[in-house]
């Protein structure tokens, strides 16, 4: 009987946490998906790189750049958090020749947690 009561109390505690916690904070910003997709090969040079995150970001502390295979920066230098959608980080690209390109991002979520990452895409 005691064990049944303990299990019930524990389950109620967890359910309460599941309902309460998501409204308290926004947590780290992790990438949800991107265009071009991580590790993908595309046939046409994209005009922008876009990464959608699962949290809103602080525009002043969030950056995105694109480098070619030699480590030379190739984006237009206008990396930004979208003004209408604070979960979207994007940067414009010029017309790029075939090759591998690395997207490098570094973001700060609105609760001040920092995350970073990079990924490759290829233009054939």
């Amino acid at each position, binding site marked *: 009987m*005691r*064990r049944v009561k*303990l299990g019930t109390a*524990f389950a109620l505690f*967890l359910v309460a*946490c599941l309902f309460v*916690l*998501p409204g*308290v*904070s*926004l*947590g*780290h910003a*992790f*990438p949800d*998906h*991107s265009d071009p*997709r*991580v*590790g*993908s090969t595309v046939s046409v040079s994209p005009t922008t790189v876009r990464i959608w995150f*699962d*949290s809103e970001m602080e525009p002043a502390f969030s950056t995105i750049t694109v480098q070619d295979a030699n480590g030379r920066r190739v984006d237009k230098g206008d990396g930004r958090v979208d003004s209408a959608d604070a979960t979207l980080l994007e940067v414009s690209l010029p017309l790029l020749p075939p090759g591998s390109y690395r997207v490098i991002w570094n973001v700060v979520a609105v*609760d*001040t*947690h*920092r*995350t*970073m*990452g*990079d*990924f*490759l895409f290829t233009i054939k």
Partner: protein
Amino acid sequence: MSINTEFRAKLFLYFAVVITAIVAIPALSLAHGFAGKRFFPTTFAVDDPFISDEFSVLINRIKQPGDEPNRATEINIDWSKRIIPDFGLEFHEAYLHLGSNGDGSANGWENLGVGAKWHFLTNEEHELIMSIGTDIDVGGTGAHQLSGSFSHITPGLFFGKGLGDLSDSVNFIRPFAITGVVGTSFPTRSKNVILNTDGSTDTERNPTTFNWGFTVQYSLIYLQSFVKDIGLGAPFNRMIMVTEFPMQTNLSRDGKGLTTGTVNPGVVWAGKFMEFGIAAQIPINSQSGKSVGVLGLIHFFVDDIFPKGIGGPIFH
């Protein structure tokens, strides 16, 4: 005080301390378990290679070794609190239920564990983190029929290393990571003298043990975000496959060299505020257990839940 009353009192006290701290301590919050791109999750039986503000409940059920093995169900509660950004305190308590094949059973709290950990190295480029710490299992604080009256002191070195710094030519290896711990557990009393009913005495030695363990992890989060988007949807895109190897080797004269431990293959799901995990617990020999057990983990990222309250270090 009966065991049941004592259990309720301790449970109430534990949650009262947590809630009071949540309300009373203001602080700013920093990250937990990260080295560059790498997120190291909290695992089951091998301690984290970092210090953070976190709260865990781990439930463990396994048949213990012996000729008449007990079925052991253990509820472990862990709370870590940073004092400064890279140094903090850890508290551990566990409630144990032992059920035998006969009529008897026993319930009670085990000894209170108190520890301190210093996270002294983070290398973002090589996804490397290292910490040192000491745990003290405080003797005499648990139920006397289940816990020792003497303490254990266990200094240890903790490490975590991701393989994300490997070249792009071995892309699908890069989501792998390992974590581990090495340490020695010293009892504060070398032996117990047991007085028999006929007046004779028996001596029971308390061994010094080398505690070592490691985990091998494959992060689907890392794969999906940094290597190749293979189209994983929820909940698989937040999963980390984990296999643990927690081990203990006897260093004392009696039974010297005997290693006990388990292999724990499982999976962890890491969300924004909490982590869930489940693993099997396979004994490596008959001295480690009599059957396959199970581990269940629920873990809260207190620093994400309360980034401007208890989630940060007390002093910056």
